[in-house]
């Protein structure tokens, strides 16, 4: 695939062990990366991938083990040392300063100055040059908070390249990108390897590994399982090595009868935080017993749409009805009371109170209802009983309802939300990016659960940036572009090309 120089080991991590207290996050892991190679790291949530890479980048120090860069043993105690040795890293959670501009973010820590005074003009020129060289187009003066996640990703990569990185670590770079953006990223990686640079990529998406990586190291619960040549294995092989069991990728889904309209959106207009129109005369219907998937590139009004339906954002024009009742601009409370449940996009910021226990989070919308409260007093026994039931039913681990939610893994946090939302017996379930950042095992679980709900005659609105997810799970697919829906298709008739074309705003 790529032009790999198997004689030059740019990275050698030897017998790396990292302990957090009693937890062994990395257990004697070896990793070798060659010049010009794209090397994938694969593993379930919490397997220890990010931890391993953070050690390579000097964010944390290994408990034991050695790291060689270009054959030389280096003690990487802080990111400066990593940067000096040509390592760049794009973190799973972007390390961007939101109110700063693109340029400011890129030059930070490596500023172009004149006696300590910033030379922004020169910096801008350099960045434009760099972005042209690698076809990573950005607008240097945009603020990070105003640009799409895909754009932010580019900024992150530029940050590394700006520092002259020869080895680029990408921690789950594609989990927030559109199919088009992913393709662009693949090109970028190809370009980089052509220059003799090496890339380590962490991803849960096996398809991508197949497409872009040369070799793949698989980690399970901190232990190294195998390193394989990607050409020589199938996706199924990779998945079973990773999880330790067989995994189904496409959730089996029988046809199901739809009936009454549950959600009806009629020509609504919604503004975003900056006061610009984000949802622009959008109309939509979701019926009982169907999953309507909304595909679209991030930033086309998806968030605003969900917030408008759930009462968190004002609807300027138009109407939303649930079960025939007008709920336009009602309070979130009232909308919840109309049997609408939501799995929010940002589970930590919006979906959970991280400092509450699991059982407290389980009643976030229901705390004031019987049997959880009587006359304003919480009924702890009932609340705990409820939590225990849900923990068992949704297989939340560890099965201790008294733990603070923040101590749970991402996947289990997501399960808490799903359990809670389904417990509310909604007529309409809105699922926004329900599998973001989850591993294949967890994704499988969520998809099954969505289909189960649909089979129980719920109406489900699925909003996802993952085209595969939308295509696998939905009964009908709508494409949102610039706040409008111009294209709705039966999932069985949908093709990736066509959807991709519509997502980019293509006209028929």
């Amino acid at each position, binding site marked *: 695939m790529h032009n790999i120089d198997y004689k030059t080991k740019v990275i050698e991590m030897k017998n790396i062990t990292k302990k957090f207290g009693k937890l062994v996050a990395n257990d004697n892991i070896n990793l070798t990366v060659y010049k010009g190679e794209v090397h994938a790291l694969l593993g379930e949530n919490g397997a220890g991938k990010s931890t391993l890479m953070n050690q390579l*980048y000097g*964010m*944390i120090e290994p408990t034991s083990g050695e790291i060689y860069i270009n054959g030389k043993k280096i003690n990487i105690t*802080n*990111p*400066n040392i990593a*940067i000096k040795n040509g390592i760049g*890293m794009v*973190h799973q959670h972007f*390390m*961007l*300063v*939101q*109110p*700063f501009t693109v340029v*400011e*973010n890129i*030059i*930070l*820590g*490596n*500023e172009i*100055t004149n006696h*300590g*005074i*910033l030379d922004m003009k020169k910096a801008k020129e350099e960045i434009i040059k760099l972005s042209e060289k690698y076809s990573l187009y950005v607008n240097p003066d945009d603020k990070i908070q105003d640009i799409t996640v895909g754009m932010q990703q580019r900024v992150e990569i530029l*940050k590394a390249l700006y520092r002259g990185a020869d080895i680029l670590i990408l921690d789950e770079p594609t989990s927030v990108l559109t199919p088009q953006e992913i393709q662009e990223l693949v090109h970028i990686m190809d370009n980089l390897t052509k220059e003799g640079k090496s890339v380590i990529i962490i991803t849960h998406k096996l398809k991508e590994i197949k497409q872009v990586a040369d070799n793949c190291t698989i980690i399970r619960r901190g232990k190294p399982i195998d390193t394989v040549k990607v050409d020589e294995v199938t996706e199924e092989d990779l998945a079973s090595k990773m999880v330790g069991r067989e995994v189904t990728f496409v959730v089996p889904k029988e046809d199901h009868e739809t009936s009454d309209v549950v959600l009806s959106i009629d020509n609504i207009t919604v503004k975003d935080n900056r006061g610009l129109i984000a949802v622009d005369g959008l109309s939509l219907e979701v019926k009982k017993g169907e999953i309507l998937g909304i595909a679209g590139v991030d930033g086309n009004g998806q968030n605003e749409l969900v917030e408008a339906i759930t009462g968190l954002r004002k609807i300027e024009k138009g109407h939303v009805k649930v079960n025939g009742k007008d709920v336009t601009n009602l309070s979130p409370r009232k909308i919840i009371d109309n049997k609408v449940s939501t799995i929010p996009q940002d589970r930590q910021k919006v979906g959970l109170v991280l400092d509450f226990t699991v059982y407290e989070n389980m009643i976030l919308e229901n705390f004031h209802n019987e049997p959880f409260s009587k006359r304003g007093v919480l009924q702890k026994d009932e609340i705990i009983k409820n939590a225990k039931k849900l923990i068992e039913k949704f297989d939340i681990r560890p099965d201790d309802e008294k733990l603070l939610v923040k101590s749970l893994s991402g996947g289990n946090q997501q399960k808490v939300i799903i359990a809670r939302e389904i417990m509310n017996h909604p007529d309409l379930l809105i699922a926004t990016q329900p599998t973001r950042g989850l591993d294949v095992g967890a994704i499988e679980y969520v998809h099954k659960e969505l289909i189960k709900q649909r089979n129980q005659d719920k109406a489900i609105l699925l909003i996802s940036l993952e085209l595969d997810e939308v295509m696998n799970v939905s009964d009908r697919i709508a494409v949102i572009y610039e706040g409008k829906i111009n294209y709705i298709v039966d999932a069985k008739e949908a093709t990736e090309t066509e959807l991709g074309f519509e997502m980019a705003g293509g006209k028929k």
Partner: protein
Amino acid sequence: MNSIGFILGTTLMYSTPLIYTSLGGVISEKSGVVNIGLEGMMTMGAFIGATVGYYSGIWWLGLICAGIGAGLLALLHAVASVTLGAEQVVSGIAINFLGPGLSLFLCRKFFDGKFMTKSISLENKIPKLFKGVFPEYSVLDNIFNQEVTVYLAFLLAIIMWFVLYKTRAGLRVRAIGEHPEAADTLGINVQKVRYICVITSGILSGFGGAAMSLAVASNFFPTLISGQGFIALAAMIFGKYKPQGALGACLIFGAAQALVVFLGGKNLAVPLDVLSMIPYILTLVILMGFIGKSVAPAADGEPYIKE
């Protein structure tokens, strides 16, 4: 009397100590460390300034020592909140008990059991610029014949604005206040920068205190800094955590106080207590009417500790 000149001159007198302290608040919070201990640091500065000023007879030495003393108090806050990951509000409140406590305790040690330092003579106080340059009590005299510290306060506000928004150091400070981890991944020493900022914050608060005890007054006593540190804190938030904003907020507050003094001399039928409320009510009204939401740096108050 020329009212405008008087009001402006009084405004400057009132605002100056607040400006220093408020700027101190800005620099600390910009780097992500909440500093509610401004009051304590200011008191410490006022005490040390007056004491050193009295014993040495050199105002600038007093000023510098005030900065150092309050800076040391700030160092405590930095150790707690930067190195030890303390709750910053809590540590700041501790400083507010410690600052006045230590100042008065030491004052009694140095001044025969008294909590009042001895008065400094006019020549040894912070000098006024343009003394005698303009006709006495003219508008220009009222406005410009002010202590060095008044000019220095404005200068510092400009310098801080420049440093924060135009230099490498400022970019890093702001980045750390918004997203310390991002700065860390780029090889910036978050802890070090935060230490520098918090200590600078103490130094500036110390200057604020000394501007009070070496310029407005000529000695230190318990009520000299009673609540001004908190007013400076409020001004810092009012000014949206920006040096230029803090400067403006302090000036507004000072102007309101000047107005009270001015109106107090006018034999109005308004009870004194009602008159005295004006600056505080005015501040709230201005905030309600004109100033948008003040948003703190994203990582303000959050300890950043690796591992």
